[in-house]
């Protein structure tokens, strides 16, 4: 390999190194910000779905957090809240939910999803999520099956996914407590 090639190679390597260094330098601050943001979102969501609670106590199995026990200022148990991934019509739907001690839903929030805009994406709208408030576990069904929840027209699959996700989690918590 002659000298010219060496120069070429050197230039390539130098550029790569500089690029990587710059990226590393940007990565650190953005990562910090991202962590903060995610934590904020989580906390906000937990409060959103469980307004009575003052702070939350995670229930773990090994490393993994299964759900949170919601405690008021006096450390009395006022309910539970959780995050759950459920497969929707396109991709995973991440749902945040809260239930009171009678296992009635106190609120839900869709954290992320990839449903079709205009169809399944309507699960994030209040018109859909507010239906859940105060609904008992036994009534968590589509209204056409005599439940309490009206499906979004054209997006039954997504609606059912949300319902199923919450159902599953409530059963899990029930079993655990």
């Amino acid at each position: 390999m002659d000298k010219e090639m060496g120069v070429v190679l050197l230039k390539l390597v130098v550029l790569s190194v500089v690029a990587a260094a710059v990226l590393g330098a940007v990565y650190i601050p953005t990562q910090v910000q991202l962590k903060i943001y995610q934590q904020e979102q989580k906390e906000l969501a937990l409060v959103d779905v469980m307004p009575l609670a003052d702070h939350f106590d995670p229930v773990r199995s090994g490393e993994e957090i299964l759900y949170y026990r919601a405690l008021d200022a006096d450390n009395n148990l006022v309910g539970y809240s959780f995050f759950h991934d459920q497969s929707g019509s396109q991709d995973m739907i991440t749902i945040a939910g809260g239930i009171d001690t009678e296992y009635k839903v106190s609120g839900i929030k869709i954290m992320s999803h990839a449903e079709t805009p205009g169809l399944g994406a309507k699960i994030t709208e209040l018109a859909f999520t507010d239906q859940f408030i105060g609904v008992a576990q036994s009534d968590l069904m589509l209204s056409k099956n005599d439940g309490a929840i009206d499906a979004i027209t054209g997006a039954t699959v997504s609606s059912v996914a949300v319902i199923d996700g919450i159902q599953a989690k409530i059963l899990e918590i029930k079993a655990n407590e």
Partner: protein
Amino acid sequence: MEDVSLFAIAINGIFVKNFLLVQFLGLCSFLGVSKETKSAVGMSAAVMFVMILASTAAFLIYEFLLKPFGLTFLTTISFIIIIAALVQLVEFIIRKFSPPLYRSLGIFLPLITTNCAILGVVILNVRLEYGFIESVFYGFTAGVGYTMVMLLMSSIREKCTVLRIPEAVQGIPHAFFITTLLSMAFVNFFGVIPT
């Protein structure tokens, strides 16, 4: 990572989340090269080949270099360098050892470096947390899906040479209209297998 059967990956890669018609990946070359079946086949073969190679190489890099060091933010840059190098290498080799193949495939290779579908498939592999087999298989089925649409499209466009297409629509707009309808034909695969 969820357990995903290879069958589900195949159906997903070919029909449900077809790269061209549903995920919008690789459109530039799709529109450019689908005028004739011959070049469509060449391009598809090249894409499929590079997709499989890239999936393999990218998996190895990601799993054994980036992940252990916590350098996942370098995914894009390392993948794209790998792809560019692979494409270049394949081009060199084909040109040297099989001039006929180079003549039919070679002209498409430079197009592939800048084809979103290739980078898309390796990034999706990472995002979907596929294992080695799944990654390579997804690369393969995405290529199959690409090839299928490419074949349909090129047959349609060849037939179009004898049709009376309005002057203003001829060329790319017409290709888009065909793609619209192809995409509509794929719509009912939605939800066949939820991911």
